[in-house]
């Protein structure tokens, strides 16, 4: 017995020691004129950075810079950036920052104006970035990051449903106008109800997952019903939500919930994807973050690949809004490899890479690439994206947004599921947001 245990322990130790050595070795840089350098990059995990990763050998060959990319889920990217990037030290030379978190990190990031001039790739021209996206990389008038993906609400409608002659005739007979991509909230609700009531498909796919996404839906509704949530006026942040309009927006969403698939109360991205793209019945119409289009257009993951019509979101009674949710890439002031880091960003935001990224069904934030007519036919979401850009709306941005979006999520979901009267839910959102702002000293 005793000997068995010691043998076991010895084996364990030997195995671990051997493997520890095995991990130690690291491949050396490739041969090239420039000195070998390594940069560490922290990015969010979705098809876009993944597509980029596949192209890295090309960058390393041209610059002799090795890039270690660490990809994590967005909340984890936030946590790691917050802990590891300080004024004096950083584990990463390039970090991806979600637009809502720019205010937190702005003071730690190298202003774009003082980035090095590239030696291999030219410095990114800010004018090449789509104007609506440009502002997400700036804070207090200083550009601190390069907006890198053109992520904002785009609308998806099932082409096969709206083009079906039977449905078209039935719908026309009942509502008196043609079935099509919904252009207004009224059309969205009526068409959705038509499909839902006839048990053809669910009418709508809500988002009730993470707080940031729920805030997007709330802002979408409120902007469409003509009210802003929080505004920066007179040097301070104030809740400017018009409660009557906000209640209308919530009431409308509640009606959409009624024509949504079962389980709508807990639908996050995964469940929405399952409902829209994997369920045989599917969903008639809903928003999508274009960053995810690659998955919806992948026949291995989607029953509706090639069957989706893209457009700007339908307009509400008093406005139209496409909520933005883009990422900027930035260089921490404390990075010791700022030159190599800048080189990497310039390469990423270059035209050549943007064109390749588009081919991978992702959406770089370069105007000329997004509006290139050569892509419009094979990538139908690009023209829709351009339309959405015209009505882009951003969520409020300030350091305490984390607490505010929790409050919004809590009462929004209660309001739209009927667990609380909508006017009461809106009242609580306003009250508790005011409390947070007051406590934060605005």
């Amino acid at each position, binding site marked *: 017995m005793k000997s068995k245990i010691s043998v076991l322990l010895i084996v364990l130790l030997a195995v671990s020691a051997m493997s520890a050595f095995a991990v130690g070795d690291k491949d050396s840089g490739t041969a090239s004129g420039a000195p070998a350098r390594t940069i560490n990059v922290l990015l969010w995990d979705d098809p876009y950075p993944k597509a980029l990763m596949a192209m890295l050998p090309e960058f390393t060959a041209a610059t002799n810079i090795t890039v270690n990319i660490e990809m994590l889920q967005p909340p984890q990217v936030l946590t790691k950036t*917050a*802990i590891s990037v300080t004024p004096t030290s950083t584990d990463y030379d390039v970090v991806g920052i979600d637009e809502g978190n720019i205010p937190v990190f702005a003071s730690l990031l190298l202003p774009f104006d003082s980035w090095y001039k590239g030696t291999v790739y030219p410095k990114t021209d800010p004018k090449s970035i789509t104007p609506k996206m440009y502002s997400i990389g700036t804070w207090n008038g200083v550009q601190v990051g390069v907006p890198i993906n053109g992520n904002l609400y785009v609308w998806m409608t099932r082409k096969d449903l709206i083009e079906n002659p039977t449905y078209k005739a039935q719908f026309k007979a009942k509502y008196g106008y043609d079935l099509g991509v919904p252009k207004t909230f009224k059309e969205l609700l009526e068409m959705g109800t038509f499909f839902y009531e006839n048990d053809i498909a669910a009418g709508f796919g809500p988002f009730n997952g993470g*707080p940031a996404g729920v805030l997007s839906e709330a802002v979408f509704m409120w902007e469409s019903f003509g009210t802003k949530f929080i505004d920066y006026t007179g040097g301070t942040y104030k809740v400017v939500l018009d409660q009557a309009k906000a209640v209308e927006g919530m009431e409308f969403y509640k009606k959409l919930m009624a024509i949504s698939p079962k389980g709508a109360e*807990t639908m996050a991205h995964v469940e929405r994807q399952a409902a829209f793209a994997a369920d045989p019945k599917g969903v008639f119409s809903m928003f999508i973050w274009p960053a995810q289009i690659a998955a919806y257009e992948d026949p291995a993951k989607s029953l509706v690949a090639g069957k989706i019509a893209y457009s700007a979101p339908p307009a509400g009674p008093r406005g139209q809004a496409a909520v933005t949710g883009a990422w900027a890439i930035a260089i921490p002031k404390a990075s010791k490899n700022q030159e190599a880091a800048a080189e990497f960003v310039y390469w990423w935001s270059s035209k050549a890479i943007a064109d390749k990224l588009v081919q991978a069904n992702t959406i770089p934030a370069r105007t000329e690439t997004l509006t290139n007519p050569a892509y419009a036919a094979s990538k139908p979401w690009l023209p829709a994206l351009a339309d959405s850009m015209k009505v882009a709306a951003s969520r409020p941005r300030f350091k305490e947004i984390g607490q505010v979006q929790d409050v919004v999520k*809590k009462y929004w979901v209660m309001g739209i599921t009927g667990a609380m009267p909508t006017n009461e839910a809106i009242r609580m959102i306003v009250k508790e947001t005011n409390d947070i702002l007051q406590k934060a000293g605005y």
Partner: protein
Amino acid sequence: MTFSRRPATSQTGRVALRRSGGQGSPVPFLVPALLIVFAVLIFPIVFSFVVSLFDWPLSAGGGQRRFVGAGNYKDLVMDKEFWNSLRLQLGFIFIAIPLELVLGLAAALLLNREFQGGRVVRALILLPVFFLPVVSGMTWRFMLQPRYGALNNFLLSLGAPEITWLGHPTFAYAAIIVQDIWRMWPFVFMLLYAGLAGIPSDVLEAAEIDGATFWKRLFLVILPLMYPTILTALLLRIIDALRIFSEVYVMTEGGPGMSTTLFSLYTHRQAFGYMKVGMASAMAMFLLTISVIFAVTLVRKNMSLEKLEDQGGNR
């Protein structure tokens, strides 16, 4: 009947033990553990205490660190979500762990015999414990989905109403408890099984031959003998249950509303959602205080080392 654990006691042995300094020094045995614990546990705890006295943003870009004294603690006491999270956490512990103990004990008693494939069964039953908590949470979320969730469909076939289980405060809370019981009762089983294996089989057999009924045997022979192991299982489970996080996070993210925001999830939210490390640290200190009280009162009374020795060494 003699116990295999007790060799013939000799007078000379006692003398030798006394002569060798009676006790010898425990220090060499304790030093390595103390070193590790000091470096990677005590230091962070002291640090955490210091942080709890500050308004300490997680990111250096989130503002200045500011000494606020007891300010965080005051905020906590005033925060109704904090008390709610504590209540949910305690409820979770009081419901899940007793059930896990009962299940684990029953299975240990039942499987404590040799039968074909017994070893494989005992190893297989442990698989849920090895199942990554995030994946477990995700799988349960998936199984409870309306329309395509397997467990949901099973419940429907039993005549349950159509409900979005994770969208309903009570059912979501029940679901995270069931998930934990599912995942962790085999842990209790394994521990108790090992404890049971430590009881010489002749004791168990003797009781059987004596014609004692099962329940008598359980309460008069087995449970008293297993007392230390059961308490250990209980303690270790409580410790883990206080730290439960990722499975609940992926299942419900603490929702709907705040109905599954356990203490640990609320701590996480303060630290990483609101980036208020000071508040999170204050919550940790609060938990530490509860743990100390718990250890000093309950554990000390029931599980002092002397008592353990009485239970074990003198049988």
